[in-house]
């Protein structure tokens, strides 16, 4: 078990998921260092290795649409920039509307998205049926479709980032847990890990589903709430389905990967207890299978190959928490990504890095700041689009 090489770092990042590693990448690119990343698990053991790989730009606020757009550009370049191919495939996101009321809500989102200049479309039932061959006619009266949304393989993103940051001199310690922070006069002075304590004036909490836990270890109460979400993959099939298909009502989502598997999930019927954080449940298998077969009856004869689960780091308004915590200077949040950390990672971490560098960023603290939940009941920015 190796210890950190130095006794002092400019930045210590807790969590080597896509958020922590991307933050490290942006810092290293700016020549800001030395940077240490610690993770108590193995690489990709968190949500970054357990997600559905969906990358969409259909959001309800202009700020999030812009973040997502920038991420799409980053993922388009990812294979060239990082030397590892995540097979980012822009084959669209299709939101299903089961009735006119839902279609109306989607139309509202469509207008915002289209207003940002994205080629969002409203589809009628027959065009939905063309995009999802074999769909039950009653499953959708229509929907919204954005063809430049897409899907990717999450693992290569993690490998590419890991290799890139290490080659730029970032130290990544795996199997090392951050136990807490050291501080003086409301200012962070160090981070305690299972491999010893290091001095630093900046610590990034990129601990994903455990970010609440780490904030608490730093003495900070936060609004983040980890929730368990399950997902399954079927036997590989010949390609027949291009877009990621989603339904807002129950959070059902599914797509067909490059390998041909149908991968997808659904919101749990009840809030999941955290005792079984990484476990699968029979109830999910049945609920997901039932929803999927109702939408696409031909899938009834397809075998489920495996199911697994991971944590969403949820916030009350469904948006991430980005920026320094005013209660403890030097303690920076990059968490609360819920089910959207892959699609928001490249752009939102670029802003976190810029904040650490002391630069101004185009994020409204009332929308993304750590203290926004203290300002009374937050607006639910993204209600219609909370998924699986």
């Amino acid at each position, binding site marked *: 078990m190796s210890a950190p090489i130095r006794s002092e770092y400019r930045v210590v990042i807790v969590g080597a998921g896509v958020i922590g590693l991307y933050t490290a990448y942006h810092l290293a690119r700016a020549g800001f260092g030395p940077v240490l990343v610690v993770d108590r698990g193995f690489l990709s053991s968190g949500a970054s290795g357990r997600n559905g790989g969906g990358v969409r730009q259909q959001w309800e606020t202009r700020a999030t649409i812009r973040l997502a757009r920038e991420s799409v550009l980053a993922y388009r370049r990812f294979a060239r920039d990082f030397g590892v191919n995540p097979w980012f495939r822009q084959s669209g996101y299709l939101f299903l509307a089961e009735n006119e009321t839902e279609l109306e809500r989607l139309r509202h989102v469509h207008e915002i998205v289209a207003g940002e200049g994205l080629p969002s479309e409203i589809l009628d039932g027959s065009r939905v049926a063309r995009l999802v061959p074999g769909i039950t006619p009653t499953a959708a009266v229509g929907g919204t479709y954005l063809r430049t949304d897409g899907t990717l393989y999450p693992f290569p993103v993690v490998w590419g980032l890991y290799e890139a940051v290490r080659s730029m001199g970032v130290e990544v310690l795996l199997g090392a847990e951050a136990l807490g922070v050291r501080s003086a006069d409301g200012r962070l002075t160090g981070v305690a890990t299972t491999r010893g304590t290091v001095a630093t004036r900046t610590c990034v909490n990129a601990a994903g589903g455990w970010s609440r836990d780490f904030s608490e270890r730093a003495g900070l109460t936060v609004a983040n709430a980890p929730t368990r979400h399950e997902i399954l993959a079927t036997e590989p099939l010949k390609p027949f389905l291009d877009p990621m298909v989603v339904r807002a009502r129950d959070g059902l989502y599914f797509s067909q990967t490059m390998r041909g598997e149908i991968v997808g999930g659904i919101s749990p019927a009840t809030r999941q207890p955290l005792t079984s954080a990484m476990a699968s449940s029979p109830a999910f298998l049945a*609920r997901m*299978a039932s929803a999927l077969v109702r939408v696409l009856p031909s899938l009834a004869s397809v075998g489920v190959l495996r199911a697994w689960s991971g944590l969403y780091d949820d916030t009350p308004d469904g948006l991430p928490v980005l920026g320094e915590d005013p209660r403890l200077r030097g303690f920076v949040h990059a968490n609360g990504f819920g089910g959207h950390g892959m699609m928001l990672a490249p752009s939102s971490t670029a802003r976190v890095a810029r904040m650490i560098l002391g630069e101004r960023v185009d994020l409204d603290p009332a929308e993304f700041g750590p203290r926004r939940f203290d300002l009374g009941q937050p607006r639910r920015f993204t209600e219609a689009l909370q998924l699986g």
Partner: protein
Amino acid sequence: MTNGRKGRRRLPILQRSIRYHRPRAPFCGIGYCTNCLVRTDQRLNVRACREGFPTEGIRSTSHAWPSPRHDLWGLLDLLFPRGIDTLRGFRRPAWAAPVYQRIVRSLAGYDTPERVAPPPVPRPPRVCSTDVLVIGSGTSGTAAVDELRTRGVDSVVVLDRDRAANDGAMPGRTTAIFLPPPIPRAAYPFRVLASEGSDRAVLVSSRRVIVATGGYDASLLFPGNDRPGVMTADGAFSFERAGLEPFRRAIAFGGGDRALEVVEKFGDRLIAVVAPGEIGPDLARAASDWAIPLYPRSLILGAGGRSRLRSIQIRARSFGPKQTLHADALVLAHRRIPHAQLFFQAGARMVWRSRIGGYLPAVDARGATSVPGLYAIGSGAGAVGPDASRESGRTAARALIEGAEPGVDLTPPASTEPFYEMQGYYRELLAEHEGFAKWIACPCEDILLRELRRASEAGYEGIEVIKRYTGLGTGLCQGRYCVPDAVLLLSIWEGRPPTEVGSITQRPPLVPTTLGQLAELEVPLSTPEASG
């Protein structure tokens, strides 16, 4: 099927491998590997071996074209002798990305659901509660059931993947696919999901569970290990039972009891017994009855023959002379791996047993695992031979009746056991190969040994990461045939014991289970007890 083997069907070539379209013949014979994947009118991805290799009613999947025997896509194997690197490749030029995606994607998958019409309507699920659930009705499971009955426990349900249960408590061919950790304090703390045949789900709630699922024969790494004609002992027995001719002249690989079974059954058709280590006295005696030459302490270096196995090259260990043996089959009987998945799923404490080179649940003398109410018997509890298996079944049954608490004196950590034989074997085998040409480390996904090696050299460590990095173990056999060997190799390359290389998470379902079947469980599973 009268007078012997004349005119019997040879092993059919029913599949091509998923990436390189290499010809594959039935291998495991017990419904796990992908080599006999076919389609029926009703179902996708059916294993022909589970249906007894019918001559009618099955069709090849649309994966190979025009047929698995003569597949034009097989050119891929020739065009890419060093494999296709989907992780680092296909990155340039940028404008070509959508083209690459379309091509690579069009090669994915075995079949399309539209090809089977109409989708079968699953039968309603079978739901029941019982005092004791016994999974597996082999030697130890049957002994446990008999003991339970003798002592007046009548509420017993038995599941078995192959056999009809001994008393009809549950029809046969029911595979337990998911044993989640028990729900504390529930009247029936275990809720076991199973799959009956291919169109019905089973949900058994039980107070106690005895797992007696035995083991299966492992695969072996060598260049050409996926060539038609290489099969496990499980496979050889199963093909013979189905009335096929598994081979004409075969080599058995293994030096212990399983190889002995192969010799007893196929002695007249064996031309050699090759073993990674010493050859046991019983096996030696049986082989000499048939005048079969023995090659103890030998490495399998490679296979000859293009579309079917024609020869095997061996070499005595510690740099002895090389030899070529001519045969049309290699029967693997060197390593039997316990089905430990259900124990992993249930959250039982597991220990690496180097005697067998696999993980077993930690158990006390009565078979109790670290999970209250969950018992392991038979080879899954480390019992060797039928007598010990029967005894372990009876002991666990008695312990269960007496309401024994989970044991405290669970099996000691494995570090006290000797080094596992196959590790030394592989160390020697790998020492003389460079680059590994196209060794197939994971046959379901066509993952090459060189991909593993490269991942390891790039600093990725542990089987969990290597699995995610290479895709090894993510195919239809759920990692049964690739992970055990991969763990040994990583242990060698990483220079640490197999326990530190780890194990992969045993995800449900244990065998692919149709969405239709699972969907039928929605109502029975939405009761509060299920949300544990």
